[in-house]
């Protein structure tokens, strides 16, 4: 009985192979003929199947920096599921950048980091000290290669280079994603490593050293490692969520070499400055939760929440809500976005150092990015699909406008003499981006 069953199964397996072979012979012959037919006309350009996403952004901070940023991203999805992606970004920033010093009732004169006397600058009484010679050009190139390993596993590797005249950075990363539960669930794990090299103009200041003594050393490095664990889950046909946990740790020279902190006396007079001094390592942990929900045929919405904390005492919360509304037969869409951000200050953040008080921590920094603030971003994107060019299926033209408003929440008591000055002016910025994808 058993033998008979085995024989039958073996026969079935044999027949299945024969049927498969017969089907393949038929379709293979057809495909080969199709190939001949397709080979005849010369219709394949090298870039034909690449999708190109290009954008030009203009960023303007009220009274400070402005930047122009062209971005080009090219991507190709291969029939076997492999995907290649390259991008090039160029940033050109000019304008005035706060140097970290406190607004004073008297004029303040600063030497330029380059040491050139022509670049020395003076800040008028009552004004926030900013370096007006700020200029930086950055070029960044990156690439990612994603390849399916099995039907449910995808490996992805990437690299990124970024170059500025005083900064060079290389990042490599790798991640693996595993689908299961009928592809409704994806688990992913990624690691990354970053190597940075800093060559500040005039040398890297010794952390915490006196600004006037100009104690600087040569080139510095920092590097970081990161890991990310994520899960993406399809809940219903209309609802998808993503949850990520990530941790990264940076070590090395983590100071901003151009930031200084004012030293003031009890009368509120600025008596000097010192270079900022941050710890030489930082560990950040963050959790991210995103929900995407389709509401009917034309509207979808996304809500994401992010929580981050680091061992410098910075904690931040981000909430972002966006709406995607397509109309005109999906030829157009608008996407309003609203983002709320709040962060607490690093434990060593101080807007100034009181010369009369003994320092409470070994570190200090007045960089407003380490201070407590909250920010709101309002954005609106409009996109229009256009007929494709040169045999492409379609192209999309888009315009995005964002308005960013930052407000500081400094708790440090203001010396009586400085009251009435706008010591912690917030920041307002506008971003306009024009994109063309084809």
């Amino acid at each position, binding site marked *: 009985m058993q033998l008979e069953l085995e024989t039958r199964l073996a026969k079935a397996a044999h027949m299945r192979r024969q049927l498969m072979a*017969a089907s393949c012979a*038929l*379709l293979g*012959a*057809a*495909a080969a003929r199709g190939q001949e037919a397709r080979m005849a006309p010369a219709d394949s350009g090298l870039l034909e199947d690449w999708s190109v996403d290009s954008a030009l952004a203009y960023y303007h901070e009220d009274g400070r920096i402005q930047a122009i940023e062209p971005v080009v991203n090219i991507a190709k999805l291969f029939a076997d599921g492999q995907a290649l992606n390259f991008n090039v970004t160029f940033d050109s920033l000019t304008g005035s950048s706060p140097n970290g010093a406190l607004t004073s009732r008297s004029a303040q004169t600063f030497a330029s980091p380059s040491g050139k006397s022509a670049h020395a600058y003076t800040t008028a009484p009552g004004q926030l000290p900013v370096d007006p010679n700020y200029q930086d050009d950055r070029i960044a190139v990156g690439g990612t290669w994603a390849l399916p390993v099995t039907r449910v596993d995808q490996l992805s590797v990437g690299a990124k280079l970024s170059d500025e005249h005083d900064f060079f950075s290389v990042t490599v990363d790798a991640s693996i994603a595993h689908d299961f539960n009928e592809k409704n669930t994806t688990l992913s794990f990624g690691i990354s490593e970053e190597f940075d090299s800093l060559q500040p103009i005039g040398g890297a200041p010794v952390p915490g050293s006196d600004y006037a003594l100009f104690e600087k050393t040569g080139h510095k490095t920092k590097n970081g490692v990161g890991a990310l664990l994520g899960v993406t889950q399809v809940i219903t046909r209309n609802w998808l969520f993503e949850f990520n946990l990530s941790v990264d740790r940076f070590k090395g020279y983590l100071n901003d070499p151009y930031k200084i902190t004012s030293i003031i006396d009890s009368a509120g007079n600025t008596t000097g400055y010192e270079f900022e001094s941050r710890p030489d390592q930082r560990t950040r942990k963050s959790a991210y939760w995103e929900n995407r929900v389709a509401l009917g045929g034309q509207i979808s919405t996304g809500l994401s929440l992010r929580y981050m904390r680091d061992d410098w005492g910075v904690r931040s919360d981000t909430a972002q809500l966006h709406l995607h509304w397509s109309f005109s*037969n*999906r030829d157009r869409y608008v996407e309003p976005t609203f983002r709320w951000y709040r962060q607490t200050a690093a434990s060593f953040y101080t807007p100034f150092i009181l010369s009369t008080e003994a320092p409470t921590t070994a570190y200090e920094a007045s960089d407003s990015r380490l201070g407590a603030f909250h920010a709101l971003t309002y954005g609106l994107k409009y996109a229009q699909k256009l*007929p494709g060019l040169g045999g492409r299926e379609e192209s999309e033209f888009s315009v995005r406008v964002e308005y960013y408003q930052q407000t500081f929440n400094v708790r440090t008591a203001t010396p009586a003499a400085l009251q009435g000055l706008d010591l912690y002016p917030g920041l307002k910025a506008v971003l306009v981006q024009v994109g063309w994808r084809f």
Partner: protein
Amino acid sequence: MAGEASNAPDEALSVEPRGENLLAICFTAMASPCEVLLPSTTAPTAALELGALVAQEAWRVEKKFSRYRCDSVTAWIHENRGTVIEVDRETASLIDFAGRCFELSSGLFDITSGVLRYAWKFDGSDRIPEPAAVERLLPRVGFKKLRWQSPRLLLPDGMELDFGGIGKEYAVDRAYDSLAVRCSAPFLINFGGDLRANRPPLHGSWQVGIERPDTDRRATMILDLKYGALATSGDARRFLLKDGVRYGHILDPRTGWPIPHSPRSVTVAASSCTEAGLLSTLALLQGVRAREFLEEHGVRYWLLQ
């Protein structure tokens, strides 16, 4: 392929949204509703262009092999009975394929069995043919009676070839190949329930409705397909009923009589639609052993008894 009303295909395409995430490009071919599903992010113009590519292939295969069209290769073969003709390469590979299937199924799968319909009219009535009438047709049935040396064919007098049993699935695969080189986005091609998809749509799988032809109502069963092909064979509305015995429309080409207890319909999943169609047809031809056959072959299947 089988389509009494398909003399002049209505060569029109329409695009319509299908759910939130998909666009369907619809047309009619081989007397069946056909569609191509693409992500809704595809521009309608591009969708129409890709849909047209698929439709052209469907109409081309239909025009070439339909036995209802007087300008088809099938009609030309029938006109030249009794003489040696040389067929084109595509027709030759289909005949080769049919020959392999005939051998592998020990004569159950036979593209020459179409003439049996002169005796059998499956119209739900009780008109069972005279055994003698069936007997008279049998000499005109049998792949072995063809003289076939690719690409030369001699079709004996009185015999017919019918590519209906494989044409629709073959058309799906051909259309699939021509679309796959042009479109890397997820797509699904569906010719009247025979279908094939290249990859799952974003975040999920294809929800495929397969009509389960029932005698009293036409129910639809929803299957989840990520990629690969599904084909369905069987038509429960075509039968005869006499003295309480149901005669299904699946005929044994060797006897000329319906195969008893064959399932009403069988749907099989395989990597190509041609293979899926072949497996589902062969399963029907196994009669009472259909389920066993499918189990032995280790395929994913859905069977309606």
